[in-house]
């Protein structure tokens, strides 16, 4: 088993421009230390219709101090997450979809780096393929890979539960199985910026194998950074 940079096609080149946009990094850096509720705010705003902050402040009173129960533990972060999410929402429909995906990937990378204690180390990478002897290379690279012998992982990221497809599940399971054939361990992880309940609904109807795929959802994102 070995990892390799993906040869960029035209779509990847365009998407790389989105991934390197400062807005993506700003959003991911704010979300990495965010609470569940703040991450839910980002999800709602980035796919909402309203682009005025007052509407969202009203919808999330416990974050913006308008409810009796509000503790506003991190109100400034909430405001900055709202600002960056509105900046995404104000892009065109196609662009906002690409930005959302890139943000989930970048956030995942930051959380995974925390787990492995490397700020800039080569062990956590983006857009990489996993190659196996005698096996045809997969079409799509993985969004994030952990390239540590004995603790390798291939991670795919999705904005919503609807993004969970048979193709995605098969690719992850195939990689895990091929690694096992080579007596290598490869964890396969699907990160979905959506509720576990919605993901469960999606998975209930699929016949694609996913028993060995670890699912990380909006309410369990911090598990990516946990060391045990």
């Amino acid at each position, binding site marked *: 088993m070995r990892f390799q940079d993906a040869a960029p096609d035209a779509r990847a080149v365009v998407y790389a421009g989105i991934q390197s946009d400062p807005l993506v990094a700003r959003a991911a850096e704010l979300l990495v230390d965010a609470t569940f509720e703040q991450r839910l705010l980002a999800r709602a705003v980035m796919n909402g219709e309203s682009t005025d902050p007052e509407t969202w402040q009203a919808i999330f009173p416990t974050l913006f101090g308008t*409810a009796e129960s509000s503790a506003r533990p991190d109100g400034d972060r909430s405001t900055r997450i709202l600002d960056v999410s509105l900046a995404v929402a104000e892009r065109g429909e196609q662009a906002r979809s690409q930005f959302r995906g890139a943000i989930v990937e970048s956030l995942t990378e930051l959380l995974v780096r925390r787990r492995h204690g490397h700020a800039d180390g080569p062990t956590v990478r983006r857009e990489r393929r996993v190659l196996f002897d005698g096996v045809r290379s997969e079409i799509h690279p993985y969004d994030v890979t952990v390239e540590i012998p004995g603790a390798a992982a291939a991670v795919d990221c999705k904005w919503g539960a609807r993004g969970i497809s048979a193709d995605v599940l098969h690719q992850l399971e195939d990689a895990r199985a091929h690694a096992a054939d080579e007596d290598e361990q490869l964890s396969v992880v699907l990160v979905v910026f959506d509720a576990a309940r919605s993901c469960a609904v999606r998975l209930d109807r699929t016949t694609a194998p996913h028993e060995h795929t670890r699912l990380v959802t909006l*309410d369990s994102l911090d598990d990516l950074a946990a060391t045990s």
Partner: protein
Amino acid sequence: MEPDGAPDDSPGTVSAAIELALDALDALATLGEEVEDEWQYVQDLTAAWRDRLATVEAARGGEAIDPAIAAAVVALAGEAARIRDPHRAIDWLSTLPQVALVALGERP
């Protein structure tokens, strides 16, 4: 123009807030059904979140809610009503109940 003393239509209880959220959920489902390939997913998703909201209503339905929480649920339903794209409606079938539950102090 509303007459003086007209009743406020904001929900005053958990039950009323959930009813508002369920109406919004149903409207999103109707829109989302336009995506034929996802018809079953729309049905399943709507049912799953209906069940979750119903569980909260059964446990806390009569509980009074803070006016800011009531306003939040009204604003949330209003935001959902602005959605015209069926694909976005499907995404909001998951988003709306999560936001409503969090406003009511529940984990999704």
